[in-house]
């Protein structure tokens, strides 16, 4: 059995090393780009970030009423939690009502006032409500006014 010459061996080793280095370089470059772009787009936002303002939240009778408004972009309402408990609530906007069950999402258009109404025990004097959107959560406290 004859071995390859020393020159061929050195050439093969050189090629293998350089190729391996290049592959690692390109993979690292790709990973850096992907994660920094993801951070820039999600964490820093593109200027049209999600925002929802809660304008009023109170309890009337056996109803918890939360009035809010979306910002420059639409918001996808996913679920409503009252005192850390998932509730089935009604969503009103644009003269239309929807049921928010936690399983189906409802898209609220941009710059639109909306009202979330949930049933509560009549004895409840206050509540903490968390409205879960796909883009983020908003939390409000509500007290009884009547």
């Amino acid at each position, binding site marked *: 059995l004859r071995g390859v010459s*020393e*020159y061929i061996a*050195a050439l093969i*080793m*050189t090629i293998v*090393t*350089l190729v391996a*280095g*290049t592959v690692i*370089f390109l993979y*690292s*470059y790709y990973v*850096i*780009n992907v994660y*920094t772009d993801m*951070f*820039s787009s999600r*964490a*820093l*936002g593109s*200027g*049209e*970030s999600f*925002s*929802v*303002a*809660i*304008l*009023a939240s*109170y309890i*009337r*009778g056996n109803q918890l*009423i939360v*009035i809010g*408004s*979306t*910002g*420059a*972009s639409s918001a996808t309402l996913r679920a409503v939690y009252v005192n850390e408990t998932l509730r089935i609530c009604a969503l009103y*906007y*644009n*003269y239309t009502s929807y049921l928010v069950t936690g399983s189906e999402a409802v898209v609220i*258009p*941009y*710059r*639109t*006032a*909306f*009202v979330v109404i949930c049933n509560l025990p009549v004895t409840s004097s206050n509540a903490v409500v968390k409205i879960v959107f796909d883009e983020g959560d908003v939390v409000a406290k509500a007290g009884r*006014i*009547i």
Partner: protein
Amino acid sequence: LLRKRVGLSRALSPIVGTIIFVIIMAMFTSLFIYMLDRVVNIARESFEKVREAGETVSSISSLKALWNFNKTHITIYIENQVSRTVLLTAIAIVYSDGSYTTISRVNRSIDAKIVIGSTVLNKLDLPLGITPATTVTITLSTKSKTPVAVSLAVEASPIAVIQAVTAKIAEIAETRTSKITPSTTLGTTTWLGIAAIPTTRNATLTKTYPQTVTSTGGVTYNLERVSRGALYYTDFEALPSDWSAIGGWWGLTTGFKGRAVEGRDNNQGVGRASQYCYSENFSSYLSLWVSTKTFLRTKLGPRPNLYSIALIRTLSPKDNSMYVIGINSETGSVEVWSYNVEGSEAGLSLIVLLYLVTELMLGMLLLLGMSIQQQL
């Protein structure tokens, strides 16, 4: 020949290894520099976002909102006090019965009276841009309901973030008129009052920066002197010609928002004190007010200094009987002294004067406020 080839290969191996090492080092160095550059850019963008968020919050927090209610309509005043335009995107009104009204883009035009600067509109369309230094007044019918809370959704730049602004209920300005009737009898008429003037900033008169807000409307103050029955008044900017000294050294001094009279006791006046006097016949008055302002500039001597207002009776059977109301420089208390008044009769002529006892310096600035009853 074999020895030569072995020697050549030994010479090549370090060179090839070095080249490979250098190439790989260059690649990873460039990768590191690239990664560092990306991190720096992200940090810079983060700082910029934080700054913009701060500006946005500042813009929204500088929006002033008030509301009031007149049984049938609610009026919302919004004033933009920053240099950026903000966008009013929604209004929520909660009523006392728990019902509510929401207004936003989807409501389209609704009946309302909108006053933007000098422009009056009859329809409200949201979103509504509120330019810098602009006041917007929105009047809506409440359909006989009583509002208890009003909130506004406001969008500001540079970050398009929406935020709720709670409108505060406006204080209703009312005009209160007080009339003061001065005494028609001889003597000083002094009145003291606090005029609380409620104002509503319902108009921006100038649109320049710094913004000047001028209160208009509802401001009425009717506090003015229509006459004065002061017997005598002097601010001692000059030595009054009709005053005279009974003992002591008296002269003008400065430094009391103008000039004042300064005196030094030499025990040569009535009651071994010193007086600076104004003479007038008070016998026809049931009561009088005498006001002065005094200042103990330097305490002299071991005994307490007394600086006072005094009444001297010059025409009584016992001449130069005297009452003194003064301030003890040691204790700060008000003291009432009499001199040579036992058995005297009331209702005689008196002298109002400044009184010094025991090496005292006195500065008199202005006639202000101490009363002395005449019934001695």
